[in-house]
């Protein structure tokens, strides 16, 4: 990573933020470099962490959205005793189930699956065209879509209703699969959150630490300025400007590097089947939060600096 040439940037930003040079040797110290790199590394991690967080959210959403409000109602092709049902019997049972579904308020829509639909469903497991020709009995499958926010209780009531009308019918809510996926992505998101929190903490501590170090190194000089009649604002402004520049330079570099890292990861996973990763990887909140990271970090830095300096000055009469 290239270290941002601070001195030069300062000239530019100095014009914007206040034209005077430093009375304290804040800018030409070796430490500055380390702090900038540190902030850059943290911003880099923050970018990755943020992206990971959002991607995991989208993944969970995608994996479960297909299942969440979808049920499958299955009408077996044989009785409990093993007798095959005739086509007419199947049709009447299906009709009964459909009429219950149609009148049930929590059901948004339902579709009786055709032979072809079922064929598609088992294709990955049994191979193409397996069932197409033979006229053998298949279970009746009805795909059911419930209204968003439907409660488990309501589903249980539905199950009972159908059971009493259609013996042996099964309502598959995909629950165990859903639970697993949500737990898994939830754990990953928790890790990402931990990462982000750690990064924020590290940044604040690094900046506060650096300002504190500067201040203790230059305490005598700060006191001298104070004794010469410099106002508190005059002195703290110098530290604030310093912190602003460090924060901006470091975090901009870090976020840039982080975005490159994301591109690399994206490229690695880019040709993957869309089954696993969501397609829209840059959501609006993600873009906004990534773009504002440097600003937030710079702001944190400035506030830490201001607070530290004013506190120290307040101790002098």
């Amino acid at each position: 990573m290239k270290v941002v040439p601070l001195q030069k940037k300062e000239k530019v930003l100095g014009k914007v933020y206040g034209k005077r040079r430093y009375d304290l040797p804040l800018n030409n110290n070796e430490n500055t470099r380390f702090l900038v790199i540190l902030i850059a590394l943290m911003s880099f991690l923050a970018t990755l962490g943020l992206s990971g967080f959002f991607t995991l959210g989208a993944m969970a959403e995608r994996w479960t959205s297909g299942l969440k409000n979808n049920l499958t109602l299955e009408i077996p092709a044989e009785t409990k005793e093993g007798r095959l049902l005739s086509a007419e019997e199947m049709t009447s049972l299906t009709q009964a189930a459909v009429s219950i579904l149609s009148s049930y308020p929590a059901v948004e829509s339902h579709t009786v699956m055709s032979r072809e639909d079922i064929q598609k469903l088992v294709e990955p497991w049994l191979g193409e065209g397996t069932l197409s020709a033979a006229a053998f009995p298949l279970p009746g499958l009805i795909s059911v879509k419930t209204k968003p926010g439907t409660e488990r209780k309501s589903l249980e009531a539905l199950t009972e209703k159908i059971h009493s009308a259609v013996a042996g019918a099964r309502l598959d809510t995909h629950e165990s699969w859903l639970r697993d996926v949500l737990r898994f992505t939830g754990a990953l998101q928790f890790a990402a959150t931990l990462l982000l929190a750690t990064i924020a903490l590290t940044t604040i501590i690094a900046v506060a630490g650096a300002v504190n170090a500067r201040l203790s190194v230059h305490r005598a000089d700060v006191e001298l300025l104070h004794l010469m009649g410099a106002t508190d604002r005059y002195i703290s402004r110098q530290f604030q400007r310093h912190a602003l520049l460090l924060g901006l330079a470091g975090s901009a570099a870090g976020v840039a590097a982080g975005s490159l890292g994301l591109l690399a990861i994206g490229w690695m996973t880019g040709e993957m089947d869309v089954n696993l990763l969501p397609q829209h990887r840059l959501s609006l909140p993600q873009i906004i939060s990534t773009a504002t990271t440097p600003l937030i970090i710079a702001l944190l830095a400035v506030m830490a600096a201001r607070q530290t300096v004013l506190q120290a000055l307040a101790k002098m009469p």
Partner: protein
Amino acid sequence: MIRFEHVGLRYGIGPEVLSDINFTLAPGSFHFLTGPSGAGKTSLMNLMYLGRLPTRGLVTMFGQNINKMKREDMVAIRQRIGVVFQDFRLLNHMSTFDNVALPLRIVGKPEKEIQSNVSELLEWVGLGEHMNVLPNTMSGGQQQRIAIARAVVTRPRLLLADEPTGNLDDEIGERLLSLFEQLNRMGTTLVIATHNQMLMDKFPHPRLILSKGILTIEESKFNLRKKLEGLF
């Protein structure tokens, strides 16, 4: 200008370094401050430039009671005081010129005025050739002269100098004392802390003598001699 009434000072939980100091300095006066090492000269100066507040007693500066003063008003008072610190306290990261220019920049003087004033003053103290040099590459005596230049560049109403000639030979020492005299004639009140008996003997100024936390004022022997001469 300066008035101390029953002033005492102690550092932390230590003994009283100054106890019951009473004196008044008129505007435009010139005093030496002397006394044995560790008597409290630097401490007394510290009170005068508002580096510390006394632990007891009343300090009046420029007609205002320090104890009741607001923080902002102290800034204004400090800007009217020039100080030569015993240990110089130069900023080692900026040039001689910038060090001397600093008090002017703090009060926001225009850069043009700063350029000419500072250059002239540095020539005068014999550092014209060292303007762009960092203080820590200068000799002890040169640093002391920078410190003096920085203290006088604002033409302060009050100048406090702590052992300003400790690192200077007698010739330069006297030269700088004459600069102080000149400032004094233009209205600056001066207090100079020194151990240098010979130096004090050359100037007809009264002495504040500090010993065991108590201050006494003594007319200069120079003056006494003149008075005696007048008598006979």
